[in-house]
C-alpha cells in the first residue's frame, strides 16, 4: 500500500526512520485536530451549550476507542495523561510510592527507558527500596528464567517495556504477569514502543498497569494513556490535584473526589490531542495490527540482510525479532553518522536513546537507531544501505 498520500511529509523526499522517537501523523489526525480548533473549541465536561457538549462527546469517544484498542474492562480504567512518561510517573509515585517500604524490591532491566528507571532510582533514594536489574541474555534480550531467579519474598513489582526501544526485543507480558501474580507481585507494562505495533489486550495479559504514548502510534504529542485495574487506580494518590477532579471541597477534611477516570484527570486536558488520537487508532485498526507486526518483522529482516553485507557496519541486535536496528559505522561516532545520513534526507537517531544503563550491557554509550513503521519501504531501506556503503562517511559528515 502506498501511504504517501496520507503522510504529506513523505512527499518531500524524506526517508523517516525515527519512529521509535515519534511517528508521522496522517492527514486524518491533523484534520480532526483542526476541526476541533475551528468548529467546537470549547472545554469539556463543563458546559451545557452545544459546542461544549460536542467536545465532551468527542473526547469521551476517544476513551471508548482506547478501551477497545487495549481491551480494558471499562472506560473508568482509561486515564488521559500527557504521555507515557507521565503515565509511568503516576503509577510509580501515585501508587507504589505509597505502598512500598524500605528493602522492598523492584525488578527492571538495563534496557528500560529512562522513564522506567529514574523514578525507581528516586524511590530507592527516598524510601530505601532496592532496584534490581534482571540479567539480560547475551543478545541483550529478556530472559524469563533470570526474572524468576531474581524474585525474592521482598519483590513487590516488576516493571518492563513490552518492546524495548533500542534492542527492540518483545517480552511475553502474559507469561511474566502469570508468574508474578502467582507470587503476589504487581506488573507494570511500558507499552510506549509496542502500542500501535502489536496487539495489546490487558484482560488477556492481566497486567496491573500499562502506559502508552499517542505520538508513537500516529497520534499527536502531549497525549498518553494510563491504564490500571479499577481497584488499583482508585488507590492512586498523585500530586496533580484540583480542577475537574472533585465534587466538593468545603474544608480540608471534606474533599469529595469524583469517580474514575475524572478524579485522576486534573486540569483542562489536551482536548484537541485526545480527539485527534481517536483517528490515529482508527487508522491503525484499518490496516490491522497483525498486518503491521508481520510487515515490520519482514522489513527488519530485509534491512538486516542488506546491512550485514557491509563490512563497515556493526549491528547490535541483528537476530532480535523486532522493528529496530541499532548499529554503528566502524570508526564513526553515532552523531556523525546521523548528520551524514541527514545529507541524504534520511532521518535516524543517534545516542543512548534515553537508555543510559544499556551501555553497561553492550559496552558502548551511543548507537545509531533505525526504528521502522508500516509506511517505510524496502526502497527506503535500499537508499539507506546505499548511503552507508560509501567509504567517506566521516569526511562527508563534517560539512567542511
Amino acid at each position, binding site marked *: 500500500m502506498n501511504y504517501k498520500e496520507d503522510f504529506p511529509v513523505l512527499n518531500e523526499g524524506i526517508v523517516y526512520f525515527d519512529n521509535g522517537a515519534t511517528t508521522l501523523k496522517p492527514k486524518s489526525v491533523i484534520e480532526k485536530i483542526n476541526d476541533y480548533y475551528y468548529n467546537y473549541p470549547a472545554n469539556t465536561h463543563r458546559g451545557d451549550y452545544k459546542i461544549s457538549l460536542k467536545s465532551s462527546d468527542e473526547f469521551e469517544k476517544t476513551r471508548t476507542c482506547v478501551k477497545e484498542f487495549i481491551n480494558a474492562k471499562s472506560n473508568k480504567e482509561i486515564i488521559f495523561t500527557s504521555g507515557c512518561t507521565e503515565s509511568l510517573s503516576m503509577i510509580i509515585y501515585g501508587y507504589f510510592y505509597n505502598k512500598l517500604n524500605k528493602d522492598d524490591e523492584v525488578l527492571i532491566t538495563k534496557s528500560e527507558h529512562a522513564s522506567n528507571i529514574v523514578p525507581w532510582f528516586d524511590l530507592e533514594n527516598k524510601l530505601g527500596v532496592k532496584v534490581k536489574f534482571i540479567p539480560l541474555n547475551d543478545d541483550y534480550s529478556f530472559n524469563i528464567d533470570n526474572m524468576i531467579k531474581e524474585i525474592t519474598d521482598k519483590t513487590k513489582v516488576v516493571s518492563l517495556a513490552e518492546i524495548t526501544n533500542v534492542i527492540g526485543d518483545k517480552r511475553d507480558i502474559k507469561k511474566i504477569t502469570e508468574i508474578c501474580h502467582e507470587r503476589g507481585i504487581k506488573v507494570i507494562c511500558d507499552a510506549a514502543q509496542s502500542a500501535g505495533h502489536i496487539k495489546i489486550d490487558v484482560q488477556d495479559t492481566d497486567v496491573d498497569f500499562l502506559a502508552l504514548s499517542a505520538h508513537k502510534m500516529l497520534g499527536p504529542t502531549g497525549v498518553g494513556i494510563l491504564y490500571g485495574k479499577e481497584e488499583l487506580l482508585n488507590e492512586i494518590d498523585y500530586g496533580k490535584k484540583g480542577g475537574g477532579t472533585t465534587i466538593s471541597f468545603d474544608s480540608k477534611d471534606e474533599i469529595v473526589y469524583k469517580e474514575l477516570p475524572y478524579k485522576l484527570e486534573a486540569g483542562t486536558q489536551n482536548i484537541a490531542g485526545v480527539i485527534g488520537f481517536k483517528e490515529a487508532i482508527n487508522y491503525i485498526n484499518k490496516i490491522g495490527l497483525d498486518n503491521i507486526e508481520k510487515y515490520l518483522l519482514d522489513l527488519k529482516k530485509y534491512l538486516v540482510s542488506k546491512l550485514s553485507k557491509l563490512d563497515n557496519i556493526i549491528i547490535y541486535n541483528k537476530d532480535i525479532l523486532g522493528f529496530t536496528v541499532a548499529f554503528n559505522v566502524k570508526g564513526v561516532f553515532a552523531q556523525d553518522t546521523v548528520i551524514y545520513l541527514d545529507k541524504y534526507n534520511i532521518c535516524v537517531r543517534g*545516542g543512548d536513546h534515553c537508555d543510559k544503563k544499556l551501555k553497561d550491557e553492550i559496552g558502548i554509550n551511543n548507537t545509531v537507531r533505525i526504528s521502522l513503521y508500516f509506511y517505510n519501504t524496502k526502497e527506503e531501506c535500499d537508499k539507506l544501505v546505499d548511503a552507508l556503503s560509501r567509504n567517506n562517511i566521516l569526511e562527508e559528515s563534517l560539512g567542511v
Partner: protein
Amino acid sequence: MDNELKRELILDHFNNPINKGLLNDSSYIKEDKSNASCIDHFTIELKLEDNIVKDIRFDGEACAIATSSLSIAISKIIGKKKEEALNIIENYNRMIAHEEYDSSVLEELNIYEDISKQPARVNCALLGINGINDLLKK
C-alpha cells in the same frame, strides 16, 4: 586553507586528539560539559599557574567536530596567559555566531568559520572550548 586540508586537520584531531585522558591531579580544576541537544560529553581538566595555562586535558565521547575543536583549542591555549586564552575563546565564539572577530588570534581554529551553515554542529563546535572558558573563569 582549502577544504581538503581542513577535513584532514579535523579528522587528524578527531582520531588522535591532544591530551586525551584525565590525570585526576588535585592541582587541576575540573568540569563536566554536555550538550543538552546532542550526545557529546566531555570532562575537562585545567591547570592554571602564575596566570599561565599550564595544561588542559580531557576525556569523553563526542562527534568529530566537538572532539577536533577541543583538541585544536587545547593546542592553541596551553602556554598562554589567562587573558590571552579568554581572548581566543571570545573571538572563536564571535566567529561561530557570525559576529565581527579577530581571525589572527584563532589560527587553525579558523577552520570552523562556516560551521553555522550546519545548525546541528554549532553546539558541538562550542562545547569543549566553552568548557575551557568556564574553568578559566572559576
